[in-house]
């Protein structure tokens, strides 16, 4: 028994850290100053999947589509208890909107096979909350959004959904896709023993990079065979992150990247922090009198 889960996780810039310091003087965001983090609600999604495994057995696989650096969140997930990690990385994924992203993820989920997919409700950078529902539609899985609590009952699942101004309890058939909200749980921290082991996990791309750095003078063949050996050794210890490109996924390229994305960005403006005419009043009786006087004068109050 047990349920096999896939958790979709995304590495995101920490948009909460955009304070005065992370804004450039022209009012634009200094993205380089923002640390890359595990999308917060994806940690809740991972925790839900780990709880399911604690209760019923089964496996937890974390899946991300992103740059090679997204392995950081995969390693973090392994240190918290995930069994396997999969990176989908390919230049042809670039500029995917949510439709293309969910198509690519659906190809990976099909290849992995799962009873349940856990997504975060929303990523804090793109901010659309669309990938979960669209992935469910592509897979033909039952969509259950805003999961706060759940209990498996054979091939169905009973879920409490947080719908903002209240809640709903539903019973849904598996396979299902959940989007998990922050209030669902408190993500467990990394386990010390696991952390010691899995911080060493690497993707083949990362292994190549290390080999190139360590053997700068070796010829390509030597580098290639050295990298292959190291990958094999890592795989034996369960430390090799699975890495797929769009060919591995047998994805139809018309639905990926730019061509697969119906939404086009026409224009991007940065928010400049400036309220226009700004007046400051001292916190004294006279200052406050003056402030109230102005508010009454321009009919804002009174």
């Amino acid at each position, binding site marked *: 028994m047990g349920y096999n889960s896939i958790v979709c996780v995304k590495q995101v*810039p920490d*948009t*909460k850290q*955009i304070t*005065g310091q992370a804004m450039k003087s022209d009012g634009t*965001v200094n993205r380089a100053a923002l640390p890359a983090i595990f999308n917060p609600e994806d940690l809740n999604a991972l925790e839900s999947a780990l709880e399911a495994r604690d209760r019923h057995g089964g496996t937890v696989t974390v899946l991300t589509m992103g740059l090679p650096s997204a392995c950081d969140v995969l390693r973090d997930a392994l240190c918290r208890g995930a069994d396997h990690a999969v990176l989908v990385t390919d230049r042809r994924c670039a500029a995917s*909107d*949510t*439709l293309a992203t969910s198509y690519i993820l659906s190809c990976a989920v099909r290849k992995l096979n799962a009873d349940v997919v856990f997504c975060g409700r929303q990523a804090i*950078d*793109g*901010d659309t*909350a*669309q990938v979960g*529902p*669209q992935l*469910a539609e*592509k897979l033909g899985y*039952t*969509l259950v*959004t*805003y999961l706060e609590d759940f209990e498996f009952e054979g091939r169905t699942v009973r879920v409490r959904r947080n*719908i*903002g*101004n*209240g*809640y*709903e309890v*539903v*019973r*849904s*058939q598996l396979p299902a896709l959940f989007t998990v909200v922050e209030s669902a749980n408190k993500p467990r921290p990394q386990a010390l023993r696991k952390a010691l082991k899995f911080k060493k996990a690497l993707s083949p791309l990362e292994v190549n990079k290390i080999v190139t750095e360590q053997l700068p003078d070796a010829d390509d063949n030597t580098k290639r065979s050295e990298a292959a050996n190291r990958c094999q050794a890592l795989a034996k210890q369960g430390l090799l992150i699975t890495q797929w490109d769009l060919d591995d996924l047998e994805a139809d390229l018309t639905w990926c990247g730019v061509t697969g994305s*119906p*939404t*086009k*960005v*026409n*224009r*991007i*403006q*940065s*928010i400049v*922090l400036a*309220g*226009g*005419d*700004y*007046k*400051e*009043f*001292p*916190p004294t009786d006279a200052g*406050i009198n003056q*402030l*109230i006087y102005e*508010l009454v004068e*321009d009919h*804002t*109050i*009174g």
Partner: protein
Amino acid sequence: MIDMNRNGEVWVFAEQEAGQLSDVPLELLSKGRELADTLNVPLAAVILGNNIAKLSEKLIQHGADCVYLADSPVLEHYQPASYATLICDLITEYKPQICLFGATAIGRDLAPTVASSMKCGLTADCTDLQIGNHTDPLTKKVTENLLQQIRPAFGGNIIATIVNPERWPQMATVREGVMRMSVADPSRKGDVVAVTVNIDPTTLPTQVLESKRRPKKVNLKGARIIVAGGAGVGSRDNFRLIWDLANILGGAVGGSRAAVDLGYVDHDHQVGQTGTTVRPALYICAGISGAVQHRAGMQESAKILAINIDKDAPIFGVAHYGVVGDLNEVIPKLIKTIRSGASLEEAVTGTAQND
């Protein structure tokens, strides 16, 4: 996806719960009316539910030329399997050029499901919608009269304008309170098209066992003046200051998420990205730093007065009036001055209310 259809209608998904329309569909209808008039096409509302025929009239009064009405017991509770299938069938049949949804719990579940199935684009959480032209940056090809979908992203730090030039319908979600609702016109006439519903309830993958909704206790959206407090207020008791100032101004009380998380004020009062979006005539905020997620919900206010002890707090960047000082001294002074102000007598005696 459907082909580009320049004669296609503008559609608004009219969300209802237990036979009640919320404000969002009515707000969307007034925006939709504007778009449809610009494009010179009809505006239609699409409504699904059980025993909801009576709502058609209200939709027409708020601007719909036509209502597609799917009324059936199987649609009593929302679920994506039934609602999305029906809406996709309608889109395929009538080929609307624009479909708007509220960015509500239901809309954010339904709209992406529909867009995925139709293989068309969807722009989330738009704050404005306009009709305009788009030039492809590579081919320089100009497409006229597209829906320009304007939305904040990156935690509210950028505003993107997004278009769907090829794969239609052009779909967008819009948050509650962002568009202004127009006044109902009881003399408006429109058509009601009854939609046949052929869904076998036993084939649906989800059963709703229990549904509890509580009405919102505060009406932040309707308030002309809002006084909001943040973590800087310090305690639930001290939040009395915020209530007092709001009461004396006849305003409503708002809070930052930190104030809500700390238990100073209930979640219904939260302003911001995950709370309510407001744009009152006057927004007074005290002890609120002005995080992007907070600003996203209040920066459209006509006038903003910020009170903060830290002169570098980002909130001053969006404020029109600022007082750098301790709110524990500034607010009582404000209350005292307003009380003594003869010109403010109506405000004091008028609509003041307690919680």
